[in-house]
């Protein structure tokens, strides 16, 4: 590292290059931090090239300094002998030691690496370091994310990485409709994935686009101004009812059976998950032995057993 030098450079002699700008969407946040700190504490990275001095790392700091007409910016200068790929790898490695990359950054890095390396090489050498799961289709998924990053950026606050990686495979209209819906629902990753899977299954089965399902069958629910938790639940129920009509019917029967038995609230009957398997459960909560006795008597009633046996079969 003898060839590295640390110098104060004027912003006008530093050229920005989109290739190294992998975190442009984080600029606003970084500016807030810099405002709080009141200055640049760590130097920028620049690379000497035949075309001048190229900015490698510190795009947000650079803009922040430029906006404030700061004339001397601390920079580590890398020699001309450093290749662009090497520079990118150095930058990625150095950032990864301090923090994790978000999904857009990961996608940007992979797309930049792809200019020099094969997908297999990128997967082998960088996926683990970038904390990208080595799943099939992942490489293509990341390239799709780069392609749609502007649109995705508006929704990163509400959309989880897993959901984004799935939705970029939808057609653009469907993807946008899903983004809008999730913006209204504000649900967890698991719920987002559940909703996406239900929509995908219905879409395949009915030969309808996800766009049609979201904007024709579900829009009334998600576009409503009500509570987002209730809306999410309603969306899930609607989709489940559409994909699982027979299961929904049986669940309805089970609920009416329970209601019809007028059991005390301390007795709970649960059916096996999806009525599959033999694990029916009864739980009784009580505080006195005599209380338990009366509940057991109620459960041991011939009519109750007969009705229960019908439901179980």
């Amino acid at each position, binding site marked *: 590292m003898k060839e590295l030098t640390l110098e104060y450079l004027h912003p006008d002699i530093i050229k920005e290059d989109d290739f190294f700008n992998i975190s442009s969407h984080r600029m606003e946040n970084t500016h807030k931090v810099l405002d709080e700190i009141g200055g640049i504490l760590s130097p920028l990275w620049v690379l000497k090239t035949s075309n001048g001095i190229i900015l490698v790392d510190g795009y947000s700091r650079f803009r922040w300094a430029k906006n404030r007409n700061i004339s001397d910016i601390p920079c580590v200068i890398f020699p001309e002998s450093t290749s662009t790929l090497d520079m990118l790898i150095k930058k990625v490695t150095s950032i990864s030691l301090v923090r994790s990359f978000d999904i857009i950054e990961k996608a940007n890095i992979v797309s930049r690496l792809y200019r020099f390396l094969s997908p297999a090489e990128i997967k082998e050498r960088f996926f683990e370091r970038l904390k990208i799961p080595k799943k*099939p*289709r992942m490489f293509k998924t990341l390239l799709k994310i780069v392609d749609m990053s502007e649109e995705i950026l508006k929704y990163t606050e509400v959309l989880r990485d897993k959901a984004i990686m799935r939705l970029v*495979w939808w057609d653009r209209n469907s993807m946008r409709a899903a983004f809008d819906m999730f913006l209204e629902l504000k649900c967890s990753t698991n719920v987002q994935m559940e909703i996406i899977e239900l929509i*995908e*299954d*219905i879409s*395949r*089965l009915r030969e309808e686009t996800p766009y049609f399902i979201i904007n024709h069958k579900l829009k009334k629910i998600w576009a409503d101004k009500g509570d987002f938790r209730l809306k999410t639940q309603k969306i899930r129920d609607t989709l489940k009812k559409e*994909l*699982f*009509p*027979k*299961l929904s019917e*049986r669940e309805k029967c089970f609920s009416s059976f329970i209601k019809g038995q007028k059991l005390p609230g301390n007795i709970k009957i649960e059916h*096996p*998950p*999806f*009525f*599959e*398997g*033999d*694990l029916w459960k009864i739980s009784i909560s009580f505080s006195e032995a005599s209380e338990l006795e009366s509940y*057991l008597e109620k*459960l*041991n009633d011939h009519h109750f*057993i*007969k009705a*229960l*046996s019908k439901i*179980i*079969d």
Partner: protein
Amino acid sequence: MITSPPKRIFLQPEVVNSPVVENLKKNLPQVRFITKQETSAKEFVPSRTDLQVLKFKGRFIRSCPATKYYHCCGYVILHFGERCTIDCTYCILQAYWNQPCLRIFGNIDDMLSEVEEMLNSHRNTLFRIGTGEFTDSLLLDPWTGLSEILVPYFAGKDNAILELKTKTVFIERLKPLWHGGHTIVSWSLNAPNIVKSEESKAASISDRLLAAKKCTEWGYFLAFHFDPIFYFPGWKESYSMTLQQLFDTIPRDKIVYISLGSFRFMPELKREILKKRPRWKLASGEFVMSPDGKMRYFRDIRIELYKFFVSRIREFDPTLCVYLCMESGKVWKKAFGFHPGDKGGLPAMLDRAVKERMQVGTKCTQSASSLLLTKPQPENSCDFSTSKII
């Protein structure tokens, strides 16, 4: 039927003198045989169109991978090879194996000694042994001639039958063989539209049934497997057509049993299939997670499917043994009106069918499942309406 012989055959040195390798060399003179010594490690990497002949070092005989939640037929697997190139879209083998190509085991002597030892040490036990669990039983038969070894071998065994399960029409080698009424040739059947769209490289239903008919003319017994059964708009009409065709073509007394199994899959299989066919519909629907980790149609749908099949088959032959593959006692009871436990258990039901229709193993008093099924089977159902909680 779209299948072709392997392009290259990779041999492990230990099996170069195997009878199946001799047959392969005789039947495929144009194919390149590669042994490990003759080639560099880099070239010794098979692709999808190749065949590997290896020495198998594990147990050739296995029990069906049963679970404690669903009734297993007690079929004994003779593990002679892995993978299949018929490439049915729904095939579980896609998610099962890592290796790209077909693989068969050349140490036939080891395989037969293991079988011999098992059959001899349990003379009172009836073994229903099949080769079609991890590959198609007859897919490579035109070139390996394995049936010429297995069929006559089982012909002389009092306490065993062999089941060759296939979707091909590769039966010609069976014609002259001495089978002694101990071999069942079985076909997997499906609705015509499913065969067309999902089993496009397999033989058509008509061809499968014509091949089956030929087998009966050569004295073989038959079985049919409607597995996987799919639930789709118009399923009743489609499956009715196949059932009608089956019973129009095949003499009923030659059918030993018919199995039914609705489509079920490990969740990763769906992901695998959708990667290749993003609009594939058949794994979308009322599939729920079962206690064994597989996705199955919601039970009411399975009952609907099975009830229909059972009633249609009963119209053609009321005495024919029909059974459900990997199903719960409750579904059995709804579909058939009885629980397998009421008939001594599913393996016993199938043993009875073998004894009655094939007259094999009539002196056997035990079922192979009692020896080989290591996992507990579901208990007999109790009549809940007469039982008391306390």
